[in-house]
Every structure is written in C-alpha cells, then in structure tokens.
C-alpha cells in the first residue's frame, strides 16, 4: 500500500494508477447507475480525486480532475454519450465540480509542500542543536589543556613567583602533558575531517602485519608504567594489501583507549590472524568493559560514555570505524564474560604468501 500511494512513486506510474482509479470507479458507478442518481456519482468521483490528491503530485491530480469531470458529463449527465448539457442546474454543477476538484488538488498540494518545509526546518534545527552541543563539549575538551598551558606559563613568567626548582619542573611537566593531549585531539579532529570530506582513499600497499603491530606498540613501551601490551601474531601470516598509516592509526586509537580507560596493571592483548583472506585483528583488555546499553553508540561521532573521565573528544572510536570502513571492513565491540572489552576487526584484503616461500 505505501509503495503504491506515496508521492515518491514515479511519474508515469502515478498517472497510470490515478487515471486507472478514476476509470474503475466510474465504471462501477456506471454499472450501479440504476440504483443511484447521477449527482451522487459526482460526489463519489470527487472523493476519488481527493483521495488521489492526498498522495500524488499536482499534475496527475489535475489530469484526474479534468478526466473525471469529462466522464461525469459524457456518461452520466443526460443526454448520455454527449458532452452537451441541457439542464442549467447540471451545467452549474459541472462547472462547480470542475472548480472544486481543481481547488482541492491545488490546496492538498500546497499543504503537502508546507508540511515538507516544516519537516526540513525541524531537521535543520535538530542538526544545529546537535552541532552546538558537540562544539560546546569539544571546545571544553580543547580548552582544558590550553588553560593548563596558559596558567602554568603565566605562573612561571610572573616576576612575583617564588617557585622552587621542583615546582618549575612540575609545571613544565604539566605543560608538556597538556600540549601532547592537545596534539592528539587535533590529530583526531583532522582525521575526522578527512573522513567527513569523503575524499579519504586508502593508499594500499603490502603490509607486514607483525611489523605494523609492533611499530605501534613500541611507541608505548617506556611511556606506560602500569599496563602491559601482549602481542600474539599467528605464524605464517601472509602480507596484506592495506593502508599502513591508517591501520596504524586504528590500532593506536584502540591501544590508547585501552590504556587510558582501564585500571592499572591491565594487560592489553593484540591478536592478528588470517581467515578466508580477511585480516582479523582483535584488541582485548581486562578492564571493566563497556556499559551494555552504550555499546551500540560508542562508534558514534563525539559520543562519550556517561560517567567517563574528562579528556577525550569522543572521536577516537569513530575514526577507528571510519578507517576500517574505508577498507570495506567491519569492527565489532563486545564485552568478554571474564571482564573487559574486545574489539574485533575484520578487513577483506589482497594477500600474498611470498614471505613464506623459500627465498633464493
């Protein structure tokens, strides 16, 4: 039913169905003309046209209005089978029928236009509101490190300060941390805008997954005290054709997330394997996992878990999803029964086993 009677149905179909409906209704009326007067037929036809006007666009409705007026005149108003009308009353009725049908068609069309405009306005308002909320939270997240930097530097530059060497070092450490955090957030924003622009095309080249994973993980050794990164790469893994930099970014965001949001001494496990030419990457931690009701939302842009600690932009995971989808891959998040979260990434890719052949 909805498919037949929406105004999205294509033009020729609209004409065909609406004219058909008028003809069928007229035919039924004609068969029943012994039981009812021809003026009732005018009303029945008017209802039919109004019904059509509710769903179809203006032109087919106007065509139906004219057609139904002509049919009524030709088949139902005496003399039958002629367009001539002798009775003045009938002539008046025919003219009025014609006018009412036209007005009906035009009014219905206008109402529909207004409804559409109102709907669009509402949607636009919603988007603007959403963006305002996002910008607010984002600027807050960017402001925090900036405030730290401004405060700490002011303090050090102030002639009145009587900071000890230890104080100064602490402040410098704060500045350094804040600027690194700022850098991370800007990088996420840049990546997001690359994704949003729609121009992100992975530069695929042969990748050694073992090398890729260790390259990311090694950046964290020495910088983390309380977490361990455990890497399990299946032996004899083929080379995969992927964008090395994008997949590194994916792993980086997931590892960073795990380190930032799991308790001390948690182990973060990264696994890689090949299944039917698909690269499978699993990133697991043994933290507290995600609240089940929020799992579906964590990949949404700017979404941050309720009751989470401040400091993120809510972009990390949506970038993960975006970069994987740019490779036509999928990412899934689930909580593990023993506690913790597991991200499973599956990316279809060209593979080669040249690395496992005997060379030379």
């Amino acid at each position, binding site marked *: 039913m909805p498919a037949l009677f929406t105004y999205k149905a294509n033009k020729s179909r609209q004409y065909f169905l609406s004219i058909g409906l008028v003809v069928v209704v007229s035919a039924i009326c004609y068969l029943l003309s012994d039981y009812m007067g021809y003026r009732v037929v005018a009303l029945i036809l008017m209802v039919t046209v109004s019904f059509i006007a509710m769903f179809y666009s203006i032109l087919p409705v106007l065509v139906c209005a004219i057609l139904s007026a002509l049919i009524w005149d030709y088949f139902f108003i005496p003399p039958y089978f002629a367009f001539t009308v002798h009775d003045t009353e009938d002539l008046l009725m025919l003219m009025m029928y014609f006018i009412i049908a036209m007005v009906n068609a035009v009014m219905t069309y206008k109402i529909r236009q207004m409804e559409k405009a109102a709907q669009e306005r509402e949607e636009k308002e919603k988007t603007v509101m959403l963006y305002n909320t996002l910008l607010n939270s984002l600027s807050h997240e960017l402001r925090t490190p900036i405030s730290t930097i401004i405060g700490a530097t002011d303090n050090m530059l102030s002639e009145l300060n009587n900071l000890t060497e230890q104080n100064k070092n602490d402040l410098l450490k704060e500045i350094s941390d804040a600027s690194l955090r700022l850098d991370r957030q800007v990088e996420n924003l840049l*990546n997001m805008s*690359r994704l949003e622009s729609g121009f992100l095309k992975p530069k695929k080249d042969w990748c050694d997954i073992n090398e890729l994973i260790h390259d990311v993980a090694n950046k964290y050794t020495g910088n983390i005290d309380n977490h361990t990164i455990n*890497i399990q790469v299946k032996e004899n893994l083929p080379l995969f054709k992927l964008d090395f930099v994008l997949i590194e970014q994916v792993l980086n965001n997931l590892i960073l997330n795990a380190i930032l949001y799991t308790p001390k001494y948690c182990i973060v496990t990264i696994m890689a394997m090949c299944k039917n030419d698909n690269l499978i990457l699993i990133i697991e931690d043994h933290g507290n996992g995600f609240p089940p009701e929020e799992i579906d939302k964590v990949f949404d842009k700017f979404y941050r878990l309720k009751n989470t600690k401040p400091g993120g932009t809510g972009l990390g995971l949506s970038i993960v999803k975006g970069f994987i989808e740019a490779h036509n891959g999928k990412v899934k998040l689930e909580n593990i029964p023993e506690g913790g979260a597991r991200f499973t990434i599956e990316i279809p890719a060209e593979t080669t086993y040249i690395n496992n052949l005997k060379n030379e």
Partner: protein
Amino acid sequence: MNELEILIIDDEVQIRKLLSITLHSNNYKVLEAANAKEGLALAASCSPDMILLDIGLPDESGHIVLKRLREWYNKPIIILSVQNCEDDIVKALDNGANDYLVKPFRTGELLARLRSAIRSTNIEESQPVFDLGDLYIDLSTHTVKKNKEVIKLTSTEYYLLALLVVNEGKVLTHQYILRQVWGVGYISQSQYLRVFIAQLRKKIENDPNRPEYILTESGVGYRFVAKE
C-alpha cells in the same frame, strides 16, 4: 669548534623563534627567512651549512623551493611538514631532501636529525667498515658480524643492508630502496621489501620486533640508525 650556520625557511614566527632558540643554545648559528623569496635569496647570499625548509610556505610551495635550491645547493636540506602528509614527505625526499621532521617535533629528534645530516656530508671518503657495537659490517669483504660471529646473508639481504648502512641516519623511501636493490622494474613490488626487511631484522636485530637498527618510518620508508 666552528659554528655551523643553519637557514630556517618558515612563515610561522613562533616556529622560527623556537627553532632559533633551540639551535642557538646548541651552538648553531641561525638565519631566518619568512617566505620562499627571502629564503632563496638568503641561501644564495650566505650559502648556509644546512637548510630547514617548511613545505607550506605562503608565496610558493616548499617543493618548488626545494627544486630551485637543489639546482645548485648540495648541502643538507631537512623538510618540515605537518601530520598526515606522507605523500608530501615522499615527494620531497625523492626531490633531494635529506630528511624530514613532522610538526610538532621533539627537540631531541630535531637535534638528532641535524647531527646525522651533518655527519653524512662530512664523510668525505667513503669508509668500508662500520663497527656499531654488536654489529660489524665490512663492505670491502662483504662481511657482516653479529656479536663477533659471522652471519650468513643472501646476496639480496646483503645489498639491502649495505644500502641502509651507507645511508646511516637517513630515511630511504620504499621506492628508492626497491630501485636501488631490485631495479627499476620492481618499484611497485613492495612485497619483496617487506619480506626482506623482516628477514634482515631476524638476522641482525637483538629483538626483531623491537628493531634498534632498521626503523620503520610509517608510510615513508626505512631508516638505519647506529645505536649511540
């Protein structure tokens, strides 16, 4: 020690200031240029010992400045770039840049790159022996020793290692390595490079998963470093 003179071509005042303070305090002399035109003029009149060139200049692309400089200037040029611009970096390296730094960079990284670029130009006569502690490479006899024991390398592995070692400290793009070791016909066959790098690491690194000699430069290439 006579001071080396470094020309900074960057339109950002803050970056120039930061670089100039850092370099001054490490006994370099500094020249500053805010755009391509000034930079080219200063390079020609002062002939500095090294140039730090920003890729995103207001009046002309850094790539064009690089090409114009390389018509006559043969001392090190280090490119300053921003994140996510691996294509830019590869292009600049292929056009004769010696190295690159991605903003924001750490001071330690900056100084290390400067030292290695200067070192590479100071080696006048090519030396055949590289004694790097637990790794020993003699190019005249094709000998490679790890912890004083000779290790067996296939000829491709050896040529790959030799290329990396001779260019110690410098990043080599994937394409450059493929062209030098395998030949022009192989520049799109990066799978060989990945495989041989992995094999080579297994033979010369203490932990192939935490390489200390052959470093991966994501999206750009590889860099051989001598442990300090």
